[in-house]
Structures are given as C-alpha cells and as structure tokens.
C-alpha cells in the first residue's frame, strides 16, 4: 500500500522520534554531497542507542554518532575524513570501545552499492565482479559467491541491504511531500527504496518541483516523513544552495582526536537544541 500522503511533512524531531528506534538498522546516505547532518545530530540529541549504522562513506556524521554512543555496529566501505585524514571517534570506538564497543561489517563501494540495489529491487542478493583475491570475504559474512548457470563462472554475491530506516537530504520537496534532488546522486534513491521506512530532510518546501536536469524525484508515497532542515547537509554541501565547508572538515580533526574536546562539542550540540 502506498504510504498515505496527507501527513508527510513534519518536524525533524518528530520524524526521528517516530521513525528511528533503538536497535534499528539505520542508513544515512549521501556520497560526499547532501549528507544528512541535521538528521544525524537529531538522532544524537534524542539519545538513540544500539543502532547499526550503514553508510558507504562514514564521514563526520557517523564519527559524531559513534562518538555519542548511538551505534553498536558500522556497515561501510570507506571510513575517513575526505581530504583530511581519519575518523578518530570511529577509531577510538574500534580500538578502545569508547564510549561503547563497535562491530564492523566491511565492504567495497561496489559491494555496498549493489547491496542497496538488491535491497531496492526486492532481491535477497546481488551479483558482481568483486572481492576475488582480496581478504575482505574472510572477515565479512555478507560476501559469498554464486555460479553462473550459463557459463559456470564464479562471481561474487553480496547480501541485500534493507535498512529499517534510511535518511537522506535533498534540495526540496513540494507540499505533497514529493522530493527532488540533483547534483551528485550517490546511492540515495537505492537506499530509500531499500528501506522499510524513509525520512528525507530538505532545504525548502516549494509549490512546484520545476524540472531540473539530472534530478531524481522520489514520490511522496515511498516516503514516511519529509522535514524541512535548511542547511541540513552542512558542513557537506547542497548543490545549488551552499558549498562544502572545508574548514569545518579540517577543524573536526582537532575536535575528534580528543575525547574531552569531543565531549564538549557534544554538550554544545545538546545545548544548541534547547
């Protein structure tokens, strides 16, 4: 059944409160572009715990959520601070279990992308040319093999990803909750369609979604909540709205290296909300 359209547009706190639960498998997607920081911060504020965080490129947003103790597991393919260095909160959780221990499930980008494709397609797995000769399959049980019934060739298989909830950020939505996003597209469409529930934050609500070259439109009926969050992707960027705040990415390196500095940052995040 299509998700009923009437009540799609709501506040971000309400959407997170109703749709993100402790223990959920949660994907916040956005490939460098349109990273849903505002939603990640709201999940931190609401104190979610035991989440399995899924994301191709855990960026600052997951470093923060991990540091805040939201996650018990991370599913990913590249975890770094792009152009700067490491994710220190992620490293600290992995090495020292601070503030809580963190499991990982590690893939390649191609593997993760195809896992979302399988999830969006209602298939239990996807086939790809990948992983052969690498050591990842020894450590990741969602990687296997499958044999082509026509050629006998052996190929990699990866298990479908179907998050309990996917959160993405987009440029805009109309009043019915149809969402439009453009620029670098990443895996947002697949991550939304693979999920049981979907939340989209947007820069603005408009009367009409004027067509934009290269844009993807997600119909309201595949979404559960659309929340207005201006600059909701900062310090990443929203094509056509604002640029990436590279200084903030560099500054995070200092904050995240140190548990006390991070804790101060976290306290401030909580205060900013109240």
């Amino acid at each position, binding site marked *: 059944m299509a998700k009923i359209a009437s009540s799609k547009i709501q506040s971000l706190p309400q959407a997170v409160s109703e749709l993100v639960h402790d223990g959920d498998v949660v994907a916040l997607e956005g490939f460098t572009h349109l990273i849903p920081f505002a939603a990640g911060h709201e999940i931190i504020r609401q104190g979610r715990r035991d989440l399995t965080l899924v994301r191709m490129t855990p960026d600052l947003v997951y470093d923060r959520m991990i540091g805040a103790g939201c996650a018990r597991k991370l599913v990913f393919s590249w975890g770094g601070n792009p152009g700067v260095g490491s994710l220190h909160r992620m490293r600290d959780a992995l090495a020292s279990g601070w503030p809580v221990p963190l499991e990982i499930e590690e893939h*390649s980008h191609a593997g993760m992308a195809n896992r979302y494709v399988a999830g969006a397609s209602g298939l239990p797995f996807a086939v790809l040319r990948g992983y052969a000769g690498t050591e990842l399959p020894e450590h990741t049980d969602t990687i296997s093999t499958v044999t082509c019934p026509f050629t006998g060739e052996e190929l990699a298989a990866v298990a479908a990803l179907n998050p309990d909830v996917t959160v993405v950020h987009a440029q805009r939505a109309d009043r019915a909750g149809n969402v439009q996003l453009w620029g670098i597209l*990443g895996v947002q469409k697949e991550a939304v369609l693979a999920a049981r529930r979907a939340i989209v934050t947007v820069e603005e609500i408009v009367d009409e979604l004027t067509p934009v070259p290269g844009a993807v439109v997600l119909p309201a009926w595949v979404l559960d909540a659309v929340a207005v969050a201006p600059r909701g992707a900062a310090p990443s960027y929203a094509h056509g709205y604002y640029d990436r705040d590279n200084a903030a990415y560099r500054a995070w390196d200092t904050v995240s290296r140190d548990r006390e500095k991070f804790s101060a940052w976290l306290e401030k995040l909580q205060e900013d909300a109240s």
Partner: protein
Amino acid sequence: MSTWTADEMMTVAASRSLRDGQVCFVGIGLPSTAANLARRLHAPGLVLVYESGTIGTEPDELPLSIGDGILADSALSLVGVPEIFNYWLQSGRIDVGFLSGAQIDRFANINTTVIGEYDEPSVRLPGSGGAPEIAASCREVIVVMRQRLRAFVSQVDFVTSVGHGSGPGDRGRLGLRGAGPVRVITDLGVLEPDPESAELVLTAVHPDVTVEQVRSETGWELEISADLRITAPPTEQELSTLRGLRTVGVAS
C-alpha cells in the same frame, strides 16, 4: 634551471603516463592532480571518470573531494554510484585506473584497510572504497604513492586490492579481467612488474635519485631493470601548469 619537489616530479611522471583519448578512473589526491595536469598538457582528450558518478568531467580547478560540486557542474554525464561501478567500471570500458595506498607489496597488491591484524590493527585505515574493483576491472592500473620503507613491503598486511596476487597467472585464475598494475610511480622513480615473475622491479629513477636511495625505501630485495632509465626532469611548462592548478575552496 628550475627546481621542483619530489611530489611534483611524481605528479608530472604520473601525468606523462596518461595518453590522449584514454578513459581514466580517477581517485582523489595525487591521481586527480596528475590526471588534470595531463589533460592540460599532452592529453586534452583524456576522459576523467570519478566514482561519484561524474563522466567526462572537466573541472577548472582541482576537486578537494571525490564528490565535489565542480565535478558535477562540468561533467558530460552524471550518473548514480551503482551505475558508475556496474555499467562503467565493471563492464571493462575504463582504460586506466589510478590508485594509491598505505602499503604496496612486491606483487603490487595494495593495502588500504589495516596495518597489523584485521581484528586488532595497529592502524585502522579508511578501507576499500572503490579500489578493489578499480584494480580488478580497469584495462590497466597505475599506482601513484610516495616510496617509504614502511609502505613498500614484501607482503601487505591486508590485500584490499589485488595487484598480481602471489605471482604470474594469479589474476587470470582469480577471474580478474584487467591487466592489473603496469606501473608504480613514486617520488623516487618508477617500478614495473617483471614480465616473467610479476614482481615489481625498478625501471626508472627520477633525476638526482640514486638506486641505493630507492632500495633503502623498499622492503624487499629490489631488482633493477637492465635498462634503467632516468626520468626526464619536469619541463618549465609542466611545472608552471602544475603549480597553476588551483584546488576548489583553497586559497592560493
């Protein structure tokens, strides 16, 4: 006579290894700089593809990240991440993949996952990203990385991306369709796999670099090619073009 840094020599050498009309799958950092340099010099028809889904992008400035807006703005075609990996990379239509890494071994296998044991690493690295499939599927791979003893090891701690596996014929047995690494360009020289043994041997040193210097930064008994070349120094044009490249959002 002009002077240059070892990194500049490495970037210039990497840019020279790209030919006009090739299609290049570009990683961020040194590979991106080298590819954009080549496009401004001898390879104006070089096609740049980034894993963020930008095909035929022609940025005026260097992108700072793989998904920079400037890549989208100047792309001939912009596609999603699943499509870029499946239709464009996996299908075998990319000529050259440019990779880097934290460790590389004598068979050009690359590690970007962990230093030490996987479950208790001494250093946790970013992980795979697009590299394993770039290494598997591009017609050839060029590696660009600084040559340091801790990075050029006999055997990598973790095989993130397969070079030549454990020797000749391994790629074929694994079903990898590209030729794998054909060249490793460092800040000291150039290493290439020996046609017989598939082991990396030194085929060129950059100007003013000695073989001993290279050996001292290599963690295995490095063989030296019988016709060891000396890299031509960067030309004035190469240096001035390289130095003229601006990175988006970074003050010059």
